[in-house]
């Protein structure tokens, strides 16, 4: 599990190559070796079904009880030119018999469906890694297309690896010859053949995949049967062929997980469920106004399936209308949400400012991707923090919440809803492409563990005028939270008008009075500054001099790096921020306890900028903006330099 600040097991995550344990050879069978963890990468053309293959292997692995972490990586083009390097789509899965934190730095096994997939990925493999290639695709032309002058399968360039040349396409077509399929149709099942082979290699359960194929192709039973046949043929091929002499076992990670019922979940799915749960806990209907954008669209898709929870999803004409509709629904008493990515946040900025002025609850969910502009739509980045913090005209403070792992997106959604509803404010939730598409095991919460988010709409007058008249003042605040009352249309006697023009304190009438504006600006800021957020927890078992501070999806890699360093005898403290605005009350005190503060971010130092400005701490920034999550080893090296420096 990856949802704890401090791991009970100080295990050096990914510190060593996959450990080889006992070896056994059941009578008449092949060798079976026990491993503590494996990193597999499936790679092929973007039309080869690699994401599906990876998803299925992940599901099998999850149901087997391993801990796991995944990293889908695909081009923005739906079908980039076949056989080219930019067209390669891959899915990396790290699974283990213990608690792990990242999808892994370097794969132990690469499945390459064509020369492009080999070329694009081989550089990431450590020597000795296993490579399974589909030899059928290694034609002269296909190899030339990616710049192989000679076949890498024959020129000795792969000598340092354990190469398994398999004619995957031929074998698949052969296995399906009894089916009434064209060659092209039959070839399409080659990913299932590969999945079957890998499932054999790693002793994965197969029932789930067969069930999945039957239901996915329920309307095309012949296709379902063909895919299942290809899947089984892959399994049988592994068992029979001499090229695969060894299979591997990775025991369930039973000890790594607290007691409970688990499932595998991606960040966007967890976030969607968190929103549905927040709606139930608040007893408010959920309203999503959204415009499709990668990598956020899956939340729109998911919520659209749950209309029986009273969820309304509105696919708007643009980003502005998406948030506009959500804000209108918030005025009407819905738990209102808009989902987007960085470019969409830019378009929504003016409406977020309006929501700040109206002081209505609104969740703005930003699944960050590489920027600026269109940037890298399918790659991850954390470079919207300052946009979330400051990207509006005027003084328009907005609370910011950031999940740290895919499963944590569930809790982060509930937390964002709590803040929005309690303080009547738009809230930014900053997830990212890595969390959105990555997955991990999730302990399914009991419903009675979920927070109570119920709100009271105002039902009657809240103010008495000097002459004794009872009136409703839309901007008369709760003295504790500074939240204004939420009186929704349909409530008799509370008819009122709100708007983006500065309002008079209390009455909410238009006011251009200088002193009033000064007061309102400071009050809106004070409301956000006063939000109750939990103190920052610090994991510091050895009273270290150096603190590594992170936020969002860097939690996994940072924690893995910290484990490595501690295993190597280093002292380093770790803290991870969920609340970026306001910061936890104790953050300043925590920072001042350490001689050195290092902040790794997938941007050019945005949290570091905020921390330096607010606390006058000489935080050291460590940055990466290549569209990929940090690798644990690279981070460990950087942190070591900081400790020594």
């Amino acid at each position, binding site marked *: 599990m990856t949802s704890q600040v401090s791991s009970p097991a100080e295990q050096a995550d990914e510190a060593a190559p996959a450990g080889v344990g006992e070896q056994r050879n059941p009578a008449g069978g092949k060798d079976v070796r026990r491993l503590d963890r494996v990193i597999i990468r499936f790679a092929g053309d973007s039309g080869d079904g690699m994401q599906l293959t990876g998803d299925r292997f992940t599901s099998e692995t999850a149901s087997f009880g391993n801990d796991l972490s995944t990293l889908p990586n695909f081009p923005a083009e739906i079908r980039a030119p076949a056989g080219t390097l930019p067209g390669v789509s891959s899915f990396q899965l790290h699974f283990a018999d213990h608690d792990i934190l990242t999808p892994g730095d370097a794969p132990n096994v690469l499945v390459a469906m064509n020369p492009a997939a080999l070329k694009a990925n081989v550089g990431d493999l450590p020597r000795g890694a296993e490579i399974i290639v589909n030899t059928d695709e290694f034609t002269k032309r296909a190899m030339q297309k990616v710049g192989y002058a000679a076949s890498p399968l024959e020129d000795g360039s792969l000598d340092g690896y354990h190469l398994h040349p398999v004619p995957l396409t031929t074998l698949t077509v052969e296995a399906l010859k009894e089916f009434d399929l064209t060659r092209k149709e039959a070839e399409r099942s080659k990913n299932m053949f590969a999945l079957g082979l890998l499932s054999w290699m790693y002793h994965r359960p197969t029932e789930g995949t067969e069930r999945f194929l039957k239901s996915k192709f329920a309307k095309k039973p012949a296709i379902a049967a063909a895919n299942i046949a290809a899947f089984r043929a892959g399994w049988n091929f592994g068992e029979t062929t001499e090229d695969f002499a060894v299979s591997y076992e990775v025991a369930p990670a039973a000890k790594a997980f607290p007691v409970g019922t688990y499932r595998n979940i991606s960040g966007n799915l967890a976030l969607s469920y968190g929103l549905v749960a927040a709606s139930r806990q608040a007893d408010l*209907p959920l309203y999503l106004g959204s415009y499709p954008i990668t990598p956020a669209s899956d939340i729109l898709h998911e919520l659209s399936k749950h209309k029986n929870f009273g969820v309304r999803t509105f696919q708007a004409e643009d980003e502005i*209308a998406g948030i506009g509709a959500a804000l209108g629904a918030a005025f009407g008493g819905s738990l209102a949400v808009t989902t987007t990515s960085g470019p969409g946040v830019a378009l929504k900025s003016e409406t977020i400012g309006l929501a700040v002025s109206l002081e209505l609850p609104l969740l703005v969910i930003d699944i960050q991707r590489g920027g600026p502009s269109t940037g890298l739509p399918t790659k991850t980045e954390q470079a919207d923090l300052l946009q979330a913090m400051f990207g509006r005209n005027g003084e328009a403070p907005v609370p910011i919440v950031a999940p740290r792992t895919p499963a944590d997106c569930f809790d982060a959604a509930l937390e964002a809803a709590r803040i929005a509803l309690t303080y009547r404010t738009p809230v930014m939730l900053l997830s990212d492409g890595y969390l959105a598409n990555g997955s991990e095991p999730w302990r*399914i919460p009991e419903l009675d563990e979920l927070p109570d988010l119920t709100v009271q709409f105002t039902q009657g007058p809240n103010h008495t005028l000097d002459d004794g008249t009872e009136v409703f003042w839309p901007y008369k605040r709760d003295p504790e939270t500074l939240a204004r009352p939420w009186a929704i249309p349909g409530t008799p006697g509370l008819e009122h008008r709100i708007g983006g023009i500065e309002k008079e304190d209390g009455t909410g009438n238009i006011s251009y009075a200088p002193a009033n504006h000064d007061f309102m600006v400071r009050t809106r800021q004070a409301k956000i500054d006063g939000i109750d957020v939990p103190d920052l927890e610090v994991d510091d078992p050895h009273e270290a001099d150096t603190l590594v501070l992170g936020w969002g999806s860097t939690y996994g890699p940072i924690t893995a790096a910290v484990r490595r360093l501690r295993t190597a005898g280093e002292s380093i403290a770790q803290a991870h921020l969920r609340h970026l605005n306001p910061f936890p009350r104790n953050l300043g005190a925590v920072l001042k306890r350490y001689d050195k503060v290092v902040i790794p971010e997938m941007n050019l130092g945005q949290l570091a900028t905020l921390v330096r400005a607010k606390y006058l701490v000489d935080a050291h920034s460590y940055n990466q903006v290549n569209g990929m999550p940090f690798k644990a080893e690279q981070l460990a090296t950087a942190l070591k330099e900081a400790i020594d420096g």
Partner: protein
Amino acid sequence: MAETSREGTGTIEALSLVPKAEARQSMKDFKSDQEVRWCPGCGDYAILAAVQGFMPELGLAKENIVFVSGIGCSSRFPYYMNTYGMHSIHGRAPAIATGLASSRTDLSVWVVTGDGDALSIGGNHLIHALRRNVNLKILLFNNRIYGLTKGQYSPTSEVGKITKSTPMGSLDAPFNPVSLAIGAEASFVARTVDSDRKHLTEVLRQAAAHRGTALIEIYQNCNIFNDGAFEALKDRQQAEEAVIRLEHGQPIRFGADGSRGVVRDPATGDLKVVTVTPDNESDVLVHDAHATSPTTAFALSRLADPDTLHHTPIGVLRAVDRPVYDTQMADQLDSAIEQNGKGDLAALLAGGDTWTVVG
């Protein structure tokens, strides 16, 4: 078209989901305590008075009425209505109102906007609200100028308009809001004039009775920056030749003693204005606002000369029944519950493939 109601009995079928007022209402019930701050002589005053005067007729619970506006002079409107209201941001009122109306079918939602707000910065939201047919009544105050920013040309200004931003004359061709709305699949499109309270009220009445999005273009005089823009329609003598009053089921005739009429040109199928004679009287087009095809309504909208305003049709150009977005959205929620049962969160979270770790 649904029957119109002149009594405060709330019998309008289109508003059947909105709770009724318990007591009889009067115009003053709809006046807020805020001082109206438009320029003296502005056409907005007449429209405000007409709307406040008309509202009691609907007999709706005041608290279930919401006015949403964008930015511009007209968009101050909600502050003066003693209903729920939101003065939002430039051009976005239709989007915000769509969220409100589609989440609350028990509300009567009105959008107040102007030619710049609706047709320039908010053009996208307007056309999409119209095609979706959300239950909104959109009052588009068209004064053919930007007033609040002090007099730049607008997307409905005539070509060659001399303004502060176009000292040598504006270059862009104007939108005809009625043509635009019909092109955007609007189910209800009407045009009226600020100074003709009776006509304005009748159009409001028909709009309120319409299920779905109603677009009402209201020609409104800006006496500061574009005074007299619609004088051709208001001056009694000129109006005879300029204004074509449309009434459903009636021949389209205008001018002194109905001497002029609209007929279809057999050669092109387009519409044209003719002097009515005993020979051609039977050719005069009978106005059918409920025609399924928008073709004739569109042709009618094109009769007006954008410069002189001659042959400007006013009244309801189009009013057709189409599925209403917000009730359909609510229906989908109901059928989802019928098909799958009411959502069970525990079952949703558990999903399909789970495993259990025991101590």
